[in-house]
């Protein structure tokens, strides 16, 4: 076979070609990369979850129109056009995947982590979710039912984990740091 050129070299080559064609501006690219490195990430979703935990009327709004309720906290944009929340309970555990590509709710969770993009996760979590969750460090009790959500269209799901016991006195600012990305996709519990 012919040698595969490294993606780093190919990316640099493509960038220089597109800059010559005036199709991309490196400083705009820098800004775009920085935005997803710093401003758009799971801290956004954590804010949504912490607000839902502390404000019953906000939770009700999330259930009825998650897109609007999330936008109200300032989070909207591509890959978040129609948001739906899934609430973990003692009886039901939700987990989200995109088998066809790696669709993910960018405005609330940022760009997907490596395990979400991994073919091992995409292929198997729709076939043997309990086994996959256990491999990922999230074994579930036998009496917890599993609901798997394959984001096959433009609906994007945010999982609302259960509020940890002993946090009754905490406010949104203290709660948000407790909410992890993995719990908001459904591969971890808090």
């Amino acid at each position: 076979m012919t040698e595969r050129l490294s993606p780093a070299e190919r990316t640099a080559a493509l960038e220089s070609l597109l800059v010559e064609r005036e199709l991309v501006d490196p400083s705009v690219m820098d800004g775009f990369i920085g935005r997803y490195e710093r401003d758009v990430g799971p801290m956004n979703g954590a804010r949504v979850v912490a607000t839902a935990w502390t404000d019953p009327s906000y939770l009700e709004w999330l259930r009825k129109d998650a897109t609007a309720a999330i936008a109200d906290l300032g989070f909207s944009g591509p890959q978040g056009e129609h948001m739906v929340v899934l609430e973990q309970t003692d009886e039901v555990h939700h987990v989200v995947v995109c088998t066809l590509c790696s669709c993910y709710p960018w405005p609330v969770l940022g760009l997907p982590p490596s395990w979400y993009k991994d073919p091992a996760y995409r292929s198997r979590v729709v076939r043997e979710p309990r086994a996959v969750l256990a491999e990922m460090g999230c074994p579930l009790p036998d009496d917890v039912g599993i609901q798997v959500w394959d984001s096959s269209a433009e609906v994007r799901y945010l999982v609302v984990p259960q509020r940890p016991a002993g946090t009754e006195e905490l406010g949104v600012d203290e709660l948000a740091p407790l909410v992890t990305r993995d719990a908001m996709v459904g591969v971890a519990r808090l």
Partner: protein
Amino acid sequence: MDSIADMGGVLGYGPASRPMADEPPFAEPWEGRAFAMTVLAMGRISGRNLDAFRHALERLSPLDYLADGYYGRWLNAAELMLVESAVLAPGAVDTRVRRDRGEDVAEPAFPEPRKPEYAPSAPGSLREVADPPRLAVGQAVVTADVHPRGPSKLPAYLRRRRGTVTAVRPAHVLPDTHGVFVGENPQQVYTVGFDSAELWGPDAEPFRLHADLFDSYLAAVTGTEDS
């Protein structure tokens, strides 16, 4: 499309990886560059037709899809679309790599761009449709038996299976046509729930699988339960 990108239920990819806390969005700097460049350049050539980009991903050869991970396939799909739109000449990227390495190779001339004559009717994917939803929550359905050569959002593992409508979602542009620049054809989308035994047989782990499926993928069947 029937391609390796449609991987639900396929075995052989090994164990799932354990999440790392605080994983950065880009493992290496080139991943960020490939990400930003793809999003920005795609907007210029296809009016941010995300369905066309996803279809470019699934049209990659399996090695190009798998060998360099997620942003590697973004990079390869971006190159495919840029060559198809004649923004770049075939082979232009590899030739530039060789020049950057110091090899004395001639670069192809820039071709005359040939953008698809197509523009979305509005930003995003959600659209209004005139007809009310054909199916109601609780309706038993069977999915289509199709063998798509182009874009489709009906995964192979969900074809010819019985399920139940669990939610009515907004109408979306239809990737099957939008992704190949022949029309938006917005359709109602439904969330459909399936029993794991219907998908994987009686020995499957018990669970429910939900997927968001376009109206034309579904036929109503008698009864109100899928199992």
